[in-house]
């Protein structure tokens, strides 16, 4: 069916999903993705933006290797390490925060590295605690730290800031940018929030409603560090006129 071919570790990721369907609750086949081609540049932040239910998460699961029931081709570097930040934190409740991170961390990831990473996402005090003692915002930070601790070749983030209040979400977005800039990683982030997409993306990929495919891949040239809210609004206004269908509802 599909073909996962190794590419060199420095080369870009290529994702080509010819067709992905799933069986709906009434037994009929629902097409989720059709003829989607996506190239991801190394050490860049690709943001996938599309309407709710368009198949973004399905696509991310395919890229993560969690779902191989599709036709198409996935070109990923050999033995690529993948870090995933799911929509829910998905921490092990019976392991402390430190153990949760250590469990998946890269083998050369030292305890000092862990302390440094924890400090950079603001969870240094939380390391000996159990996840149930944390607020959602803190648990999200732990999930983020866990993903970075694997030193991933590819970092996948599935709406990592959803259902947080706007202030917390915004703080976490900047935190993500900080950690990501200090440890440049090829990343794919999924969101339906246009301002979040504009703030984070090197390449902003607009997706069509189901069955989804790429409508446009828009590069954003201004470095993330220089995008204040005025810059974000300017880009937003520009994109709104160019892709009204994708931005009007945001």
């Amino acid at each position: 069916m599909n073909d996962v071919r190794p590419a060199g570790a420095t080369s870009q990721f290529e994702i080509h999903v010819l067709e992905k369907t799933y069986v709906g609750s009434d037994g009929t086949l629902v097409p989720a993705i059709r003829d989607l081609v996506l190239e991801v540049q190394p050490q860049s932040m690709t943001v996938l933006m599309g309407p709710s239910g368009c198949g973004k998460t399905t696509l991310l699961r395919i890229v993560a290797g969690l779902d191989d029931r599709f036709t198409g081709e996935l070109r990923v570097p050999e033995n690529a390490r993948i870090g995933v930040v799911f929509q829910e934190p998905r921490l092990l409740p019976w392991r402390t925060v430190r153990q949760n991170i250590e469990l998946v961390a890269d083998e050369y990831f030292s305890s000092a590295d862990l302390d440094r990473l924890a400090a950079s996402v603001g969870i240094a005090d939380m390391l000996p605690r159990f996840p149930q003692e944390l607020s959602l915002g803190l648990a999200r930070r732990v999930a983020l730290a866990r993903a970075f601790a694997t030193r991933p070749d590819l970092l996948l983030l599935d709406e990592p800031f959803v259902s947080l209040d706007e202030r917390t979400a915004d703080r976490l977005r900047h935190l993500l940018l900080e950690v990501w800039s200090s440890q440049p990683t090829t990343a794919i982030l999924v969101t339906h929030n246009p301002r979040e997409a504009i703030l984070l993306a090197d390449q902003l990929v607009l997706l069509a409603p189901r069955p989804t495919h790429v409508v446009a891949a828009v590069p954003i040239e201004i470095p993330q560090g220089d995008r204040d809210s005025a810059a974000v609004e300017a880009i937003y206004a520009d994109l709104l006129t160019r892709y009204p269908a994708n931005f009007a509802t945001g």
Partner: protein
Amino acid sequence: MSVISVAGFLLVWLIAAEVAQSRVLPGPAEVLRYVVDEALHGDLLAELGITLWRVVASFVVAMAIGSVIGLAMGQSPALDRALDPWLIVLLNLPALVIIILAYVWFGLNEAAAIGAVALNKIPNAIVTLREGARALDPGLDEMARAYRLSPWSKLRNVTLPQLQPYFAAASRSGISLIWKIVLVVELLGRPNGVGFELHLNFQLFNVTAILGYTVAFVTVMLAIEYLLVQPLERRTTRWRNKPV
């Protein structure tokens, strides 16, 4: 609180025995004297030991077999459908039928006794662990797969901790069921153990001895519950007892 309620029970027993003044209801002091005497000079400790060994052996056998089948049934709907009728039969088959048939077919021996007890417990373990397997969190499973955890690491860190409450529930109900059935098995076909002694003293109409063995047995049971089961449970669920 536990101490007060036990003391209250002893008091009621004492008063009842004083009022009845009957051979069929000896007081706590008399029973305690019998227990100490039998422990020091008689067979009480040996008989308790034999019973305890049968309990442990059937418990281990039943939990091992029951867990494996239960987990397999929880994860494979086809296997679940195939084995379900047999599970229902076993669940509802009277313990006595299994015990008698085991003795008739396999002889009055230790293996038949332990096998019969285990077979009575296995369906309960299956049902509980099947629920456990069905309740495994698919989100955590995905997390383990995405992060490429080794099968061993996944079992130890992701799967077993989720099954722990189900193991605990199966163990707890299993121990109590096995305690009860082991005595019946001993009564019917073993020449030793607490069940045999109870039967013997029933024929001799020695109520002091019957109560004495019961008290000794209950003491062992409580010791296992409070010194082994509960501390273990507290340790494995400590992550859960924290305030959010």
